[in-house]
């Protein structure tokens, strides 16, 4: 039975939404946070582990220097102060995906605190999202549930654990309560995560592919009746696996909570689970004192005391803040406001930038990323930015520029790239998609077409050049599109002139 929801606008009439986001960013260091096991994707389960990843008796953690540097850089990029002294803490709880049944995290002395991030909405409004803190911690392993419905935990017979991911470095970014988003609340969530993503990609510290779980978001939503001081009870929604989901989940929670409150009910403080397929949240476990994490300072690790010099070194190496960067790029690329907005709203700013860096013109880069790639992403329900690599898009465009591909053929190659068939050149070769540049072959096709439509030649000789169109069409069909239409036209006219 679906939960009752209120119309969104009505909900906002009656209630003020207050938001909070916890975003986890996976760092792309070579090794894990507390062990020298490799931090890489897609290996066979339980390979290349360090003893501490499995919590083996006698094993001990040792901090990854690079992860600390990345975390400080991220803190600075979020406008945070960097702690003079920062320490690790144990978060104690039992779960099979934990090697030690505690997570080494940070509690009372996070590495970064008190910052703000400027987020740009679709209509150009700038919202300043206040950051409470950013802290370092380690990821858990991966569970696979067997025997239940669709791999879900409920009703599973047993579960399998792979600890490859256990210990991967994470930075958790926690916002303060966000007020004033109003009708933009759902959009703000997605825009915020997108901004974090852009920041960490610009810093080069994370691949930040939401699909891969490199960046994860938990959305907190509460409502308070208009005019009330006291904050409402908040829910935390997990399993929000895409930007779109962030937006949808926030919107849904607002509508769901509004319906309950309007009926005179109360909101249960709980963790909820987002379902992308049905577009609803469902309750997880109620937040209770079963979540007594018994934090205490990690005795096996020592405090992190970043020097002045290190902080200034990292600060000097920061890329420009997102707003300034956007202004610069818009000017450099010569886009209109609308064109630039398309790129920014499509969440492909970094991708366009990187495609241009790989040799494409701004116009071509924009055309691909806001055009065909966005269309394919939308169809597949995926993030545009995750679909293909900018360098590959640049390569594709080079093939078009060289005349090897027409736009139409290039779109076919793009589909192959998205399907993972290989590089553009590999796909062209494998599928035999290259434009035929051999005039001889074209002329042969033209002659065949002319023979089939004898009156056309006369028409052209007569000056009715448009008649060539029918021949071009026939030739393109015969060549399966692998011909440059302009060249075909040229050759036809040459023929006619003979």
């Amino acid at each position, binding site marked *: 039975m679906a939960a009752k929801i209120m119309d969104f606008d009505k909900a906002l009439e009656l209630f003020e939404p207050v938001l909070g986001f916890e975003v986890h960013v996976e760092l792309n260091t070579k090794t894990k946070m507390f062990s020298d096991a490799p931090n890489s994707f897609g290996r066979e389960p339980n390979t290349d582990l360090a003893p501490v990843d499995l*919590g083996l008796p*006698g094993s001990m953690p040792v901090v990854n220097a690079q992860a600390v540097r990345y975390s400080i850089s991220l803190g600075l990029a979020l406008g945070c102060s960097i702690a003079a002294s920062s320490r690790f803490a144990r978060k104690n709880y039992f779960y099979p995906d934990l090697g030690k049944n505690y997570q080494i995290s940070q509690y009372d002395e996070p590495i970064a605190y008190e910052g703000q991030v400027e987020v740009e909405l679709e209509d150009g409004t700038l919202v300043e999202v206040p950051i409470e803190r950013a802290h370092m911690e380690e990821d858990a392993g991966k569970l696979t549930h067997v025997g239940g419905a669709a791999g879900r935990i409920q009703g599973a017979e047993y579960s399998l*654990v792979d600890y490859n991911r256990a210990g991967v470095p994470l930075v958790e970014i926690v916002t303060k309560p966000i007020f004033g988003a109003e009708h933009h609340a759902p959009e703000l969530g997605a825009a915020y995560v997108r901004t974090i993503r852009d920041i960490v990609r610009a810093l080069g510290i994370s691949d930040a592919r939401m699909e891969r779980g490199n960046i994860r978001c938990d959305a907190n939503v509460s409502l308070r009746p208009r005019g009330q001081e006291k904050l409402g009870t908040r829910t935390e929604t997990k399993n929000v696996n895409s930007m779109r989901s962030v937006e949808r989940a926030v919107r849904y929670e607002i509508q769901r909570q509004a319906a309950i409150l309007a009926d005179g009910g109360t909101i249960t403080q709980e963790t909820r689970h987002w379902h992308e397929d049905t577009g609803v949240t469902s309750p997880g476990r109620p937040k209770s004192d079963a979540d007594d994490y018994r934090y*205490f300072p990690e005795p096996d690790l020592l405090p992190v005391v970043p020097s002045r010099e290190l902080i200034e070194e990292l600060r000097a190496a920061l890329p420009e803040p997102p707003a300034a960067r956007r202004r610069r790029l818009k000017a450099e690329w010569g886009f209109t406001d609308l064109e630039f907005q398309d790129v920014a709203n499509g969440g492909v700013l970094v991708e366009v930038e990187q495609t241009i860096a790989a040799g494409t013109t701004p116009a071509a880069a924009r055309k691909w990323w806001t055009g065909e790639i966005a269309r394919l992403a939308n169809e597949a329900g995926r993030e545009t930015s995750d679909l293909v690599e900018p360098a590959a898009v640049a390569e594709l465009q080079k093939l078009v520029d060289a005349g090897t591909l027409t736009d139409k053929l290039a779109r076919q190659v793009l589909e192959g790239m998205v399907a993972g068939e290989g590089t553009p050149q590999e796909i062209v070769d494998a599928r035999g998609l290259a434009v035929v540049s051999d005039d001889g072959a074209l002329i042969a096709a033209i002659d065949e077409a002319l023979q089939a439509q004898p009156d056309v030649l006369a028409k052209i000789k007569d000056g009715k050049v448009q008649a060539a169109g029918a021949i071009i069409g026939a030739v393109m069909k015969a060549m399966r599109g692998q011909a440059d239409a302009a060249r075909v036209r040229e050759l036809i006219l040459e023929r006619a002139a003979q």
Partner: protein
Amino acid sequence: MSDIIRLTAAELADKLAAGEVSSVEATQAHLDRIAAVDGDVHAFLHVNEKALDAAADIDRRRAAGEQLGPIAGVPLAVKDVLVTTDMPSTSGSKILEGYMSPFDATVVARSRAAGLVPLGKTNMDEFAMGSSTEHSAYGPTHNPWDLERIPGGSGGGSAAAVAAFEAPLALGSDTGGSIRQPAHVTGTVGIKPTYGGVSRYGAIALASSLDQVGPVTRTVLDAGLLHDVIGGHDPHDSTSLTDAWPSFADAAREGARGDVLKGLKVGVVKELPDSGFQAGVAESFRASLDVLQAHGAEIVEISAPHFEYGVAAYYLILPAEASSNLAKFDSVRFGMRVDLNGGTVEDVMAATRDAGFGDEVKRRIILGTYALSAGYYDAYYGSAQKVRTLIQQDFTAAFGQVDVIATPSAPTTAFKLGEKIGDPLQMYLNDLTTIPANLAGVPGISIPSGLASDDGLPVGIQFLAPAREDARLYRVGAALEAALVDSWGGPLLDRAPVLGGAR
């Protein structure tokens, strides 16, 4: 053959180097000794079937002219808290029965690299929680001085092994006195190094901020030789110190030469009056102080007003850290798993930990869970950490006046097996004098000070030094040892009862 086992490690090492005895012979002699007496003593949980192979390898390399370390070829007993790749590591618990570690503890790896021959794994209180080795899941160890008495704990196995001449050297661990107190009740030598002086990597953790690994031997020089092998920075242990350490064997030799005691200021803690100790223990302690004085040392009364809070603080900090350190024993990746025929993993975890942990371990885990509980942290664990600060301040102030502090190593001599097991509070008081060093991180040594006049059982004297001044303990310990052994006409262990044969 029996002569070999009566040699100190230093003496055996000399003979090995001189080619007078082979490592295979020495190892065989100790294996024979174990076979003869360990049925009664029960120091060992596991004897290394490959010991002779390792010994033969050392002999081979020596014969080939290879340059070997000073104690290469000497047999070594290893407390079962230290993980080994070739022998099971149980930490005295059923929950780890048969556990085979894929890596060696750093101290074990260094020992092997130095040519020491691991003889076997020794018995201990479960997860090092205890002062009598009666909490071992595999049955208690018996004190070689009186088989009906406890050998101390948690490292009773290692101490008993060296006291019974089953091994010349042993490795132990000390969290609240687990090396020093067994040394005291068995008439042997034990050192808890400065915190961070010896790697904890591969030592199954009890309380991370208190644990240290150290040598268990019959003489101070032997301890120094072993400490030289195992000590020093380990990048796998973030809390290990990067200091370069002097040779402790050299410090011991220097101490034995004699002049060290002249002008040495020895502090005696006002707040640990004789009345708090068994009469025979206090008497032996005073007698040793007299010997120190006779050799030119000055006895100075010092105040350590916060020592009395040590036990209370310790029994808040230890259980808290232990409750977290022992969470990893959950049936999932290693160790015991109880088959519940269905049941959730939470059920299996709970049932396994119920079946696999003994009463003392459960008690401390529950206590520790409570001490860390939401809302109680500041009052309990947080406050106990303040006592640590105060005790460190006591030590700093004291060491401003004296070079070393001396105390009896424990309040009583070896009590009878079963005597205190029903009363945890009574048991906890055994650690009264040893706990402050763990809280503060300073090094401590226990050497035999004699036999108690009231029951004829061994008594140990403990010395404490400032952090990083472990060498001072070796100098002072060796000096007093030389003087005492001289006055006794031979080591204290010469007077231990003869073991061997059916009981």
